[in-house]
């Protein structure tokens, strides 16, 4: 027996090989069954998935003791844990993280719809006993995670503006962790919704795509402010249902769709979403996915959570540092020719360029404000700070996501390759570049 510390046993707690649980009733009659999930809570506690009210459950409530055997899926080393039941959680971050993992395990075993998490039973680990038996040596990890994390954080430190920082975040996941598909989503001020603002490894950037809180691993990570990962994809955590609903509602207002498709992989097998927090406040979500199963383990979650945490701190520092610093640098002249009609629908602040949907919400309102000002006065240079206090925009009192909104707007305009652009013009400043005749319409 060794002093209980579960940290080195986490590979055995991924649910790859089913664990075994023994319990007894008050008369000493034992019961033994397989259990889908023994989840790591902290070095001294695990959570077991409560899925059915069965004999195991009755025994646990009666005698509060369990003996569990876990298997490392790489080395086949087994350990026996003596556990004492503490409590059952039926909501919250731990519950949601187990629910996502269980959905993946169920999908993997053809048990989708059969395995359903009713509660997370929390147990204190009294002892951890290695079980003697044949083992397979563990292979050395190709990329030591701690070194990769350190390099990733250093790379983020080198960024001097938000746009560069968000792009760098997806770059370092590729360079340091070999993660080829990733995105950064930012939270809307006061809304239970995120929008993609940077992505890497997809055919379409998907910048501007929205994810509702609670939807997929991204939406659950945002709502619960906890990392969520899944090693076998399942329908339950796919994106689309809520997006379709948004599209349908939008369709009632105007024929053209007002959404941007989510850029994710068509057939992901592993996904992980890490909340980007600053002082407990949700700034956004760092998301990665892969076509292989079980791509992200507990150690990967630790590493990426550190990167996401560092990203949150860097965002906060850059925002605190925001000043108007005028660097007039004329943008490349756009070819002048033709003309476009820009339409604005106040109902959802959506903007259409000719008949194509561009953007909606705060970013749509900002663009419309800039275009009106340009049309009336010919002015092209603006400061973020004046938008923040512009009564016509009615921004939330602490509209700190304005910078991220501007990045989104710039990128959408760039992707559209229309004759409208927004260029950076020094810290906290930007320039509207209009290279064609402009007609503004605001249909009633």
């Amino acid at each position, binding site marked *: 027996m060794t002093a209980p510390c579960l940290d080195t046993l986490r590979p055995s707690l991924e649910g790859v090989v089913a664990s075994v649980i*023994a319990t007894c009733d008050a008369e000493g009659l034992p019961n033994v*069954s397989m259990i889908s999930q023994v989840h790591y809570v902290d070095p001294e506690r695990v959570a077991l998935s409560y899925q059915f009210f069965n004999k195991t459950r009755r*025994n646990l409530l009666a005698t509060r003791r369990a003996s569990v055997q876990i298997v490392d899926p790489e*080395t*086949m080393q087994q350990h026996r844990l003596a556990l004492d039941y503490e409590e059952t959680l039926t909501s919250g971050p731990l519950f949601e993280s187990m629910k996502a993992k269980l959905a993946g395990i169920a999908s*993997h075993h053809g048990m989708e719809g059969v395995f359903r998490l009713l509660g997370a039973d929390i147990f204190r680990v009294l002892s951890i006993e290695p079980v*003697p038996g044949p083992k397979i040596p563990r292979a050395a990890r190709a990329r030591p995670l701690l070194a990769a994390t350190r390099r990733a954080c250093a790379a983020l430190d080198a960024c001097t503006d938000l746009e560069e920082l968000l792009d760098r975040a997806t770059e370092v996941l590729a360079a340091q962790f070999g993660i080829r598909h990733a995105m950064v989503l930012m939270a809307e001020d006061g809304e239970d919704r995120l929008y993609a603002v940077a992505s890497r490894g997809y055919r379409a950037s998907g910048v501007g795509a929205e994810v509702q809180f609670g939807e997929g691993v991204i939406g659950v990570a945002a709502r619960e402010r906890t990392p969520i990962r899944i090693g076998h994809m399942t329908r339950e955590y796919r994106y689309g249902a809520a997006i379709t609903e948004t599209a349908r509602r939008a369709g009632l207002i105007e024929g053209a769709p007002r959404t941007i498709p989510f850029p994710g992989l068509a057939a992901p097998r592993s996904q992980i979403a890490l909340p980007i927090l600053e002082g407990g406040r949700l700034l956004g979500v760092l998301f990665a996915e892969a076509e292989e199963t079980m791509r992200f383990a507990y150690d990967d979650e630790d590493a990426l959570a550190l990167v996401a945490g560092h990203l949150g701190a860097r965002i906060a520092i850059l925002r605190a540092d925001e000043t108007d610093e005028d660097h007039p640098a004329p943008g490349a002249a756009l070819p002048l020719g033709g003309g476009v009609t820009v339409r604005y629908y106040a109902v959802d602040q959506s903007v259409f360029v000719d008949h194509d949907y561009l953007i909606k919400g705060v970013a749509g309102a900002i663009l419309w404000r800039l275009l009106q000002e340009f049309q009336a006065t010919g002015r092209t240079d603006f400061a973020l700070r004046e938008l923040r206090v512009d009564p016509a925009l009615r921004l939330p009192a602490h509209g700190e996501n304005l910078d991220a909104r501007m990045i989104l707007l710039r990128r959408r305009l760039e992707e559209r390759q229309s004759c409208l652009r927004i260029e950076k013009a020094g810290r906290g400043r930007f320039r509207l570049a209009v290279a064609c005749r402009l007609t503004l319409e605001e249909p009633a």
Partner: protein
Amino acid sequence: MSSSFIPASPINDLASWAAQKPAPGGGLLTPDLVALAQSGVSVTLASCDPDGRPIVGVGIGCRIRPDGTIRALLGRAANAALLDAIAAGGRIAATFTGAPDHRAFQVKAASATLREALSDDLPEIDRQCAVLADGLVEIGFSRELADGYVAHDPDDIVAIEFLPERVFTQTPGPGAGAELTR
């Protein structure tokens, strides 16, 4: 995973229990459960120590004698605590779980007897382990891991024998854990 098989269910287990008589030699088990237990399944065990604390164990294979006595084979060193609890008079539970369809049943008895392994246990264990490893490969294990999962030390095998007194379906799904009674 593989969707080529019809998932086993507790309902199906209850139906096949009702449709069969106990195996002719004696004991409670029906012929299909006798066959399942010896078909290369995962064997898990539990007892209760004198303090009332449950002890989990993992077996290597299983043989069933014509009179219905179950002879579960397990590693001695790997299951020292379980063997101690049984020697001290602890009751026994054993669950047999098949791969790849997760069909499973559990048996319980008031006591079990420790026995030495017999020379003809070893080839039978090898056979069952080979079948189980193939089943694990079928549900997605690599060959190396499947073989690692069933690996054992042939010089450290012991048997526990008991006559099942109660039988339960343990296949996952609604009704899992239901007792199979006459």
